[in-house]
């Protein structure tokens, strides 16, 4: 295999770039011998799904992973550049309509994509990509006017625009109905005042899918989603938030002061924003869960590799039953999560409501990610506590899963609604 080894050196200089030499190598071998997850998945995936993953894997190995350490340090990754590369490969609009540059494929392709993005050596970049493909654009693609789609969706699919989703505010993230930002009609425009908090891609975005109150009245029927160009006067990106994880993804706090945007920038019907957003959340949640599976798998395998090499008390760490059994247990849990995701996707693709299952996926992914990263980190001992190994990065990055995009408790509330066990809110006296 002499040439094989030579190619390894020449084709993948990536390995030399990566500071985490030992670790990244370990993870590389993991990817290659990755579980053939997509090969046998209840008929969900085809050869084309696999080819999509192969293309994405090449892009990750060449254009993303070699730079992740640097981006983590700088606290931002070049979204424009990375998105353009992905856009050129046709990967930012797999489920979007063909008239706007998408491929019009079903959601199974989004899930294959999300799973493969899990081979990126951090949580931040996949999250930013997910914001573009599955969080800020689904409602626009489904309900937006042709004009809006040409102006905002097409360039987001080609990778010329970076988008962000503006739902959460200082006053509330979980309670979406309580957002305070207003868009008041005046002379054919909306005048926007208020602010958004925790906005992923916020410092780099060309436009925001903004949730704002467009009228007085009941909280579930007074909101609209609006396409808001981020270069308008009155928009201030106040600060980039310093976070414990997802460090290469920029998270911004943004203020609006008398920002003027034409009324035709509203997505679909005025007053339907809350409903659209709840629909949009479903894809976001499934995407988030799907993007979790591969890294957890990779972590389990790399931890086993590490424990096989590490000798403690005279024998490989891995020979302790408590370790190899624990890893087997975790691997089982990951496969359960994967199956739940595939079931939800199956339902979604066949047109059924997946709210209940998607909420379960999101809940389980968040909980399991915490369990797997914590358990694996433990087995790396003191090394696990350093920033030299990927396990600590994922330990930090994945802590977000139980909070962002609807906290675990919010998922539980949704599941309870479907179980008819959620108490009615107390009558206001």
């Amino acid at each position, binding site marked *: 295999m002499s*040439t094989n080894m030579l190619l*390894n050196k020449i084709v993948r200089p990536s390995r030399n770039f990566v500071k985490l030499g030992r670790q990244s190598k370990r993870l*590389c071998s993991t990817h290659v*011998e990755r579980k053939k997850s997509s090969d046998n998945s209840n008929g969900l995936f085809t*050869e*084309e799904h696999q080819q999509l993953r192969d*293309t994405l894997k090449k892009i990750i190995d060449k254009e993303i992973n070699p730079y992740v350490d640097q981006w983590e340090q700088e606290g931002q990754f070049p979204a424009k550049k990375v998105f353009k590369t992905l856009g050129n490969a046709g990967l930012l609009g797999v489920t979007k309509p063909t008239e706007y540059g998408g491929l019009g494929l079903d959601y199974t392709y989004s899930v294959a994509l999300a799973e493969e993005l899990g081979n990126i050596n951090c949580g931040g970049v996949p999250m930013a990509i997910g914001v573009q493909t599955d969080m800020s654009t689904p409602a626009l693609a489904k309900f937006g006017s042709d004009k809006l789609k040409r102006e905002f969706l097409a360039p987001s699919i080609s990778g010329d625009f970076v988008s962000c989703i503006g739902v959460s505010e200082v006053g509330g993230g979980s309670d979406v109905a309580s957002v305070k930002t207003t868009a008041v009609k005046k002379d054919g425009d909306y005048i926007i005042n208020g602010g958004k908090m925790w906005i992923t891609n916020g410092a780099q975005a060309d436009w925001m899918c903004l949730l704002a109150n467009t009228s007085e009245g009941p909280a579930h029927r007074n909101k609209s989603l609006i396409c808001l160009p981020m270069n308008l006067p009155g928009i201030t990106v106040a600060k980039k938030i310093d976070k414990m994880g997802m460090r290469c993804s920029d998270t911004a706090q943004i203020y609006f002061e008398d920002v003027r945007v034409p009324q035709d920038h509203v997505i679909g019907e005025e007053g339907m924003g809350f409903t659209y957003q709840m629909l949009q959340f479903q894809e976001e949640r499934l995407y988030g869960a799907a993007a979790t599976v591969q890294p957890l798998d990779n972590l389990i395998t790399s931890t086993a590799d590490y424990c096989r090499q590490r000798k403690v008390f005279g024998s490989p760490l891995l020979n302790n039953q408590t370790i190899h059994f624990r890893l087997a247990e975790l691997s089982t849990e990951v496969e359960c999560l994967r199956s739940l995701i595939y079931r939800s996707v199956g339902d979604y693709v066949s047109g059924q409501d997946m709210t209940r299952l998607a909420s379960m996926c999101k809940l389980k992914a968040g909980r399991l990610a915490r369990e797997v990263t914590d358990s694996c980190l433990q087995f790396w001992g003191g090394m696990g506590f350093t920033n030299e190994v990927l396990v600590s990065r994922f330990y930090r990055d994945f802590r977000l899963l139980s909070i962002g995009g609807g906290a675990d408790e919010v998922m539980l509330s949704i599941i309870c609604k479907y179980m008819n066990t959620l108490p009615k809110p107390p009558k206001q006296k």
Partner: protein
Amino acid sequence: MSGFRILVGCKRVIDYAVKVRVKPDKTGVVTEGVKHSMNPFDEIAVEEAVRMKEKKLASEIIAVSCGPQQCQETLRTALAMGVDRAIHVITEPKEYESMQPIHVSKILSKIATEEKADLVIVGKQAIDDDCNQTGQMTASLLDWPQATFASKIEKSNGDLSVMREIDGGLETIKVKVPAVLTSDLRLNEPRYATLPNIMKAKKKPLVTKKPSDYGVDITPRQEIVSVEDPPVRQAGQKVESVEELVTKLKEAGLV
């Protein structure tokens, strides 16, 4: 150029990044459940052909892969990269284990003649068996000129001017078409198959043939006695300074 046809070889091999393992019974290496992809040198060959077509130097590209059913995946990748149609010369997995460059060369030369190809481009070698024979043998069987280890291909007055990587450096030669070329690593950087092209590739023609359709007998004439792991590399040592390194090398009698 109209009517200029390029034939490219696309071998399916174990992915370059996989740690290859020898089978316990030492009859070969483990291939089951292992990621495979197109031989990287063939990817370069495909890329070069596609670029020639984009520059209107060629009108049609045909990809050929010999081997088991899964070779069709490799051919689909070639189609997604821009190849026009594909020929899969199917063999039983068992037969394939003993298939040699001579068999593939016979098949390729037959197809080149049948399809009236003007140019055959194959990788300079495959990263699994490292044979480096198929291109040369194909040229010989066809009695066409060959330009191996190409790192630059240009058209000059109907001929091809090919820069080759040789031990001493670079050599440029001229060949008349029809010819056989083999691609070296630095010829180009292959593109990614984009998703739109992956989907389009599904509809491109792929025909399945048997070696016997080309009158090629692939009965093995040799037997694999044993496949062994390379000897394990001994652990290295870290040295603090150049001086220490030199001392150690002297001690070992290496300088």
